[in-house]
């Protein structure tokens, strides 16, 4: 299919809407966060496989990598990973329920509940990762 200038303009507009937070509501933020965390989790899956492949190079290589991951910067990334996973999961439940036509009138309350659960899980994860 030939892409016209009109199509290219439309693509630019679609992308710019993602980067334009003005006038948007909780639902859009949840939608954008769900997509970003989803992409992040897929990227992490591949990164995880690459990291695991270090085992092929023997115990010494693995131990030195584990030592690197005890650095606070990597521990902060771990907290971020748990938070992303928790958000994607907790937000997924309202998306599935509301998207099936259930509890539609409660969609905002469901999002707020997902946010509260996310905060709790992230807090517990941070305490366990840094002080556990």
């Amino acid at each position, binding site marked *: 299919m030939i892409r016209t200038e009109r199509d290219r303009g*439309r693509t630019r507009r*679609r992308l710019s809407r993602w980067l334009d937070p003005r006038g948007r509501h909780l639902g859009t933020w949840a939608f954008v966060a769900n997509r970003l965390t989803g992409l992040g989790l897929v990227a992490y899956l591949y990164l995880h496989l690459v990291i695991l492949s270090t085992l092929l190079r023997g115990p010494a290589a693995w131990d030195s990598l584990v030592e690197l991951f005890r650095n606070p910067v990597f521990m902060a990334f771990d907290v971020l990973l748990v938070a992303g996973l928790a958000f994607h999961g907790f937000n997924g439940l309202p998306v599935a329920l509301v*998207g099936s036509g259930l509890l539609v009138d409660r969609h905002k309350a469901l999002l707020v509940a997902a946010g509260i659960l996310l905060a709790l899980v992230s807090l517990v994860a941070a305490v366990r990762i840094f002080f556990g």
Partner: protein
Amino acid sequence: MSATPTVLLRVFRYRPGDDAPHYDEFRVPAGPRTTVLDALLAVRRGLDPGLTLRHSCLHGSCGTCGMRVNGREVLACVTRLEGLGDPVVVEPLAGLPVVGDLVVDMEEVFQRLEPAGRPLVRTSERSWTERSGPATQGPVLERLERFEDCLECGLCLSACPVAGDPRYLGPAALAAAERVLEEPRGADPSKVLGWVDDAHGAWRCHAAFECSAVCPAGVDPAGAIMRLRRRLLRDRLPRLIGRYSREVPA
């Protein structure tokens, strides 16, 4: 005597053939009841007669002056400048091709609405049409027949985070389809259900609810889409379970 308060408008400008859009600034008088459309018309009268905008009724019932003000989709004729800050940024609706300045091409909006069978004409109205003879039939009358409540202003399409994709039917068309299913008035519900039961139909919505938040007529397209999905699931599940029980031996 105190000076008349003014507001700075930052207005999106684009003409076909321009390399890129830009923003022009106009300072306009702003009283407590001045609307965005009043201010834009003042710009056109006194400062820049070339400013392109579309409007008709001036009281929020025709839906032609839809645009984004400070990033939010509104009808300019019923949106007061008061409380919007300074400057006020005025832009055309998103996701639709810009014809010029604040005017977008609405053809896609109407095309998406058409297959819903959106003209919900009551029997009495149809009788009137038939009685009126050929002079009142044809294109003019077709334009007059409208989906109840929906102004066809396109605000929902602009606010929807996924409606930039022209394959997606969009909130207005899906809400119209749901209305047809709710009250078919002679329409074929299975045909409408088949039309919306598609990856780019009811299932494309991501439940951001922006369409319902900006709808000036209270149509609640997002709620309608979710009701459509519930109906589709209710129809689909027994078929899926039936197929599973036939195909999988006990």
